[in-house]
């Protein structure tokens, strides 16, 4: 048990430290790197709790895909080091907004945790770990039976978001020559070669 708690404190200290660094570090690139570190250590915490599937999915989806896009955007925008004035003591307009948002999140967390405590038929996490089928099977058994509607709806929402993003950024370019693979493959000597009679002093047009 002692090793378990050593590991727990190790990962949670890294998680808290890196999430602090995400908001305080001066260069945006470093912020993204600390965000990735944060994701990874939270994933490790998930695995320690016994939710190995969630931990791995967190790594695959957030670290493997979402954070790559973050990094991509930050690198492409080439945002220089931000001057954070609130370190030095000048007034910043962000602090009130940030405070309001964080107080709201804290309240929400309190409500959720409070409600969870008074709900009646809550399975405790220990029963989940004790049972002999694996974490992934349990998730599948619940997700595709009781919660199939929500699962599908979440998928459709994501699909809509994707279509919307594509639609917003799509622009049709005119005058660009496109390669048509079907045409290229279906060419045969009889259609590719054309014999033309060239009259002297007149020439032929071959470009149409």
């Amino acid at each position, binding site marked *: 048990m*002692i*090793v378990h708690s050593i590991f727990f404190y190790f990962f949670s200290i890294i998680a808290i430290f890196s999430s602090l660094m995400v908001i305080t570090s001066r260069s945006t*690139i470093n912020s993204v*790197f600390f965000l*990735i570190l944060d994701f990874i250590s939270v994933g490790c915490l998930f695995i320690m709790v016994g939710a*190995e*599937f969630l931990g*791995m*999915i967190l*790594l*695959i989806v957030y*670290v*493997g*895909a979402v954070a*790559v896009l973050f*990094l*991509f955007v930050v*690198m*492409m925008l080439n945002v220089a080091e931000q001057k954070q004035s609130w370190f030095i003591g000048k007034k910043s307009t962000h602090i009130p907004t940030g405070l309001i948002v964080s107080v709201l999140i804290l309240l929400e967390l309190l409500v959720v945790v409070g409600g969870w405590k008074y709900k009646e038929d809550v399975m405790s996490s220990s029963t989940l770990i004790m049972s*002999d*089928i*694996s*974490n*992934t*099977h349990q998730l599948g*058994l619940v997700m595709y039976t009781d919660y199939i509607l929500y699962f599908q709806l979440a998928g459709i929402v994501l699909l809509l978001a994707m279509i919307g993003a594509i639609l917003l950024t799509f622009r049709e370019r005119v005058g660009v020559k496109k*390669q048509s693979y079907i045409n290229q493959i279906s060419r045969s000597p009889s259609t590719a070669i054309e014999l033309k009679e060239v009259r002297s002093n007149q020439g032929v047009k071959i470009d149409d």
Partner: protein
Amino acid sequence: MIEYIQILGQEVYKILFLLIPILVSVAMVVWLDRRVWGLVQKRRGPNVVGPFGLFQTIADALKYIFKEIIIPASANKVVFILAPIVTMTLALVAWAVIPISEDLVLSDINVGILYLFAVSSLGVYGIIMGGWASNSKYPFLGAIRSAAQMVSYEVSIGIIIINVLLCVGSLNLKDIVLAQKELWYVVPLFPMFVIFFISALAETNRPPFDLPEAEAELVAGYQTEYSGMMYAMFWLGEYANILLMCAMGTILFLGGWLPIIDIYPLNIIPAPFWMIAKILFLFLLFALIKAIVPRYRYDQLMRLGWKIFLPFSLVYLILTASFLFYFDKLPKVGI
């Protein structure tokens, strides 16, 4: 407390027992790669250092170790140094879950295939970090290319893995291999095997998909500014990744450590031998393809990933699922 230290010692011993063979085999495999490449082009390849040139890679590595490491003045030094370390570490860390035989595995976890997938999807960070931190144009272009390429091909690899998992009913790598006792999945899922192989080429930035380091366009891509040991680490990580992809293909499709047919002279050959032979077979295909296929153009690469592989593997997934459902062959879970 002494108990824990003992356990820790045992684990370190086991890890070394896994890592050192992998590093040695990476060196040997680089030699094999160059040798095959040479043979295809009617050259001899490296044949001077040691018997058949076997120690060529070790000589190269020694050369790299003694070279000076040059860090560009305008580079972001921390990230610049971190990038090869990340590449190398991730390539080696993934080997922890690969079962060489039924009981020769470092850690037998329930979500082994997800772990492999996660680690291989993290591999892109080494390249992006290296490309960005060099603070130079060609490396940056290479990094952007490789990020887009690896993210695209991961999608189709993910769907191919789902195909296999549907037939197995477990995420454990051992279960995946044992489920192939009667029939290797390369037979019923042959199109998926082909797509997996091609996606693995793209995922490891091997020719014909080596656009991140296309020397004709980008000098050397993301590794242009690297020198000495740091370059060697990129290089070792790359080959360890290729071996890892071969191992993944072996486990998913070629029946891992299982012999070809379970009959007398074949099943007394020890299991690790079969595993290594299959990995080497796949690697040989990798090496041959490097030698015989010209490089893809970038838009063709993207088209292949998104417009051909993704829809095709999705359709095949639906086919597999319907087949299993119709013939009532879906794996049962003990409830």
